[in-house]
């Protein structure tokens, strides 16, 4: 690694001149440096852009690294902040166009609409995403950061904070949708002198990367959300349980914690009040089950990450048997904005009992792979076609999988259904953490069910018998079907067994493991029958032994 010239070192506020210039820049280029774009050399782009701008004699521009710009499919992404002009698929050697665009920016320029992918979104948890440098506390504060915490500490009591969260209608964004205000109240009222707040950042659903992007793009927001939560439930210590597979998120969290501690937003006497709260990071070693709260607690305690039966719930008996609040990244990320803009504002968004917005990770056979935040109640069609840009190659939409391995597949006939916790459950799926995997006619639904069963079988912790053995048995039956060797008795056995596992498994992972089977059977039973009776895979995915060879 050669030493870069000081002038080209990309930092916020450092305009590309010999000396640091604190004046507002005339033009700024925001380079997405979240994991997806980083893997496509985004950091090199930032460096090169700095060099080229300096060579071109641009002294009044800013090159800033920012968090996820959302449209991962087009990464690496660079945005001219003043005009909203976007550059996609940028290569480090081809930044001249961006330099030219920077030259052209006039003070009178205004941001132009960036297309439906951006315009149809409503950003709450991700409001700073792609706008701030994730490692710059000042940048966060400039955009309203820590306003909420300061107000909470100076003007509010723990009761009024909880009341505002309850009134906002916020529900757990980790999957189950438990009312956040109620959870906070339970922890606050639980007996115990020591209480904890844990941020669950052990995101593990296939195709889900919402928490990752939030952590990489706006880590201070999580710390602020946790501090507010801690104040509301009388906790003084917090843990962020993040999977070790997210090194960039962990690094940025570490930086954020250090900066927040130095600035007095973490530690003793936060924001010059008597409130104390500090945060530590705990790394998960890659077990999916550690996203389950009791397993997560065991893992934080340094024990084997396996779940235990509830009750007692962690709110009453959690970390080291103390009352513990566990919230997901996105839930905590929504908290500062809700308190800043008011619970009524938040409750005004959404539909029915599902208030506010939800972050979705669009993946699969969709044009605009990436991260979006939309109001609850938006239809699947809007998400998939307007925001997502439709199906790759214009193929027909077949289904969308939500809720990860405990979720289900929703077929085309429900494209106009509005997305909420309730509607998804009604359709046999699950909100989950927000992974949205789009499938077209090249997907075989039995194969999809088999994929998720394989995931569950692999991730089973092995504690309870129905999950440890049952998921493998389900997988074996699905394998038999995809090989065209199953009978109708096997199908009956599959359904029977799935029902038993759902009712007898110990934790959510095991109880939810049969869901992909139930939902594909509900909407795509004909595909199962095609494999079993006609011995064909309609999508042409499964390799089926010809019937005559079988005999």
């Amino acid at each position, binding site marked *: 690694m050669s030493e870069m010239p000081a002038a080209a070192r990309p930092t916020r506020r450092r305009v590309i001149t010999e000396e640091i210039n604190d004046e507002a820049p005339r033009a700024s280029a925001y380079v997405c440096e979240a994991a997806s774009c980083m893997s496509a050399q985004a950091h090199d782009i930032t460096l090169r852009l700095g060099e080229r701008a300096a060579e071109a004699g641009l002294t009044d521009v800013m090159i800033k690294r920012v968090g996820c710009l959302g449209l991962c499919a087009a990464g690496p992404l660079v945005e001219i902040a003043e005009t909203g002009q976007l550059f996609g698929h940028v290569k480090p050697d081809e930044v001249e166009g961006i330099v030219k665009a920077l030259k052209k920016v006039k003070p009178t320029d205004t941001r132009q609409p960036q297309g439906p992918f951006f315009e149809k979104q409503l950003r709450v948890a991700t409001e700073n995403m792609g706008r701030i440098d994730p490692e710059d506390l000042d940048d966060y504060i400039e955009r309203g950061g820590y306003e909420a915490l300061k107000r909470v500490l100076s003007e509010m009591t723990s009761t009024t904070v909880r009341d505002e969260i309850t009134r906002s209608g916020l529900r757990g964004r980790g999957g189950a949708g438990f009312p956040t205000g109620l959870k906070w109240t339970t922890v606050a009222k639980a007996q115990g002198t020591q209480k904890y707040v844990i941020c669950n950042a052990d995101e593990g659903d296939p195709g889900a990367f919402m928490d990752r992007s939030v952590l990489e793009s706006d880590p201070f927001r999580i710390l602020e959300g946790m501090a507010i939560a801690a104040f509301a439930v009388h906790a003084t210590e917090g843990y962020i349980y993040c999977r070790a597979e997210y090194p960039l998120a962990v690094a940025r969290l570490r930086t954020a914690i250090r900066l927040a501690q130095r600035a007095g937003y973490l530690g003793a006497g936060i924001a010059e009040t008597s409130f104390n709260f500090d945060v530590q990071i705990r790394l998960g070693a890659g077990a999916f089950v550690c996203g389950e709260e009791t397993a997560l607690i065991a893992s934080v305690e340094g024990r084997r990450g396996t779940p235990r039966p509830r009750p007692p719930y962690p709110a009453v008996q959690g970390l080291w048997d103390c009352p513990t609040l566990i919230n997901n990244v996105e839930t905590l990320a929504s908290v500062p904005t809700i308190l800043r803009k008011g619970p009524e504002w938040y409750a005004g968004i959404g539909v029915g009992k599902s208030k506010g917005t939800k972050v979705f990770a669009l993946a699969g056979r969709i044009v605009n792979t990436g991260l979006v935040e939309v109001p609850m109640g938006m239809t699947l069609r809007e998400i998939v076609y307007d925001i997502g840009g439709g199906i790759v190659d214009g193929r027909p939409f077949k289904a969308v999988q939500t809720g990860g391995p405990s979720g289900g597949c929703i077929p085309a006939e429900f494209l106009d259904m509005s997305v909420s916790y309730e509607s998804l459950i009604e359709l046999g799926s699950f909100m989950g953490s927000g992974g949205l995997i789009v499938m077209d006619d090249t997907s075989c639904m039995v194969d999809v069910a088999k994929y998720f069963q394989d995931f569950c079988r692999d991730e089973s912790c*092995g504690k*309870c*018998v129905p999950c440890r053995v049952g998921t*493998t048995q389900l997988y*074996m039956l699905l394998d038999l079907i995809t090989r065209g060797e199953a009978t109708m008795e096997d199908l009956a056995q599959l359904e029977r067994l799935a029902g*038993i596992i759902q009712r007898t498994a110990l934790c959510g992972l095991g109880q939810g493991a049969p869901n992909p089977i139930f939902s594909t059977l509900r909407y795509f039973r004909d595909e199962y029958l095609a494999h079993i009776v006609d011995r064909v895979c309609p999508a042409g995915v499964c390799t089926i032994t010809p019937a005559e060879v079988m005999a």
Partner: protein
Amino acid sequence: MSTVFTFRIDGKDVAGSEGQTVMEVAEENGIDIPALCHLEGIHDRGACRLCMVEIAGSPKLAAACMTKITEGMDVTAHSELLLEYRRTVTEMMFVERNHVCAVCVANNHCELQDTAEELGLTHFDLPRISPKVDIDASHRLFAIDHNRCILCLRCVRVCDEIEGAHTWDIMHRGLETRVQTDMGIPWGESTTCTSCGKCVQVCPTGALFEKGRAVARGSKTRRPFLPWMKVVAEERGL
């Protein structure tokens, strides 16, 4: 003074002290709820899922060994549905590894065998998984045949909670889960094992056995030492 709760199990009126589990009160009242990981004297973990019971008003089943009693609760410990669940869960234990009763040291002294008989399980609809599983016979007195292990973890708990040695623990996950001695070294090389034999004593199957016992000669006459050790521990305030 602890509070006494009255409630019902299978329609029978029963009473228990606050803090007791459904399983404990059922046992006291002669109501047999099948279980394989539960053992009086060591902590429960609710993992075998055989003791699942229905509690009126709750959509979810609950493990009797982990469910604390409450006033007026209405527990169904036996029903056609629960019988089917229990049979299938027992079946899962049989097909997971390689249980061959005919050549097992614990034949006729095996709680898994007993459970199958009690539940009227006469055959397995599920296919056997037939994994290749090891045997560790490196210990002077005892051996473990993982083919017969159902991962009840009684050995792990008794070693930790009663003997205080914590020689046993678990490694890997899912179907690959194995009980292990020390950090996965052969049992005979363990520096923590006190050779007390409690693990062998509590093993419900023939997975842990004394060396030199022939097929079906591995009778484990129940010594009442576990409850006794628990009483001693409580008296000493441990």
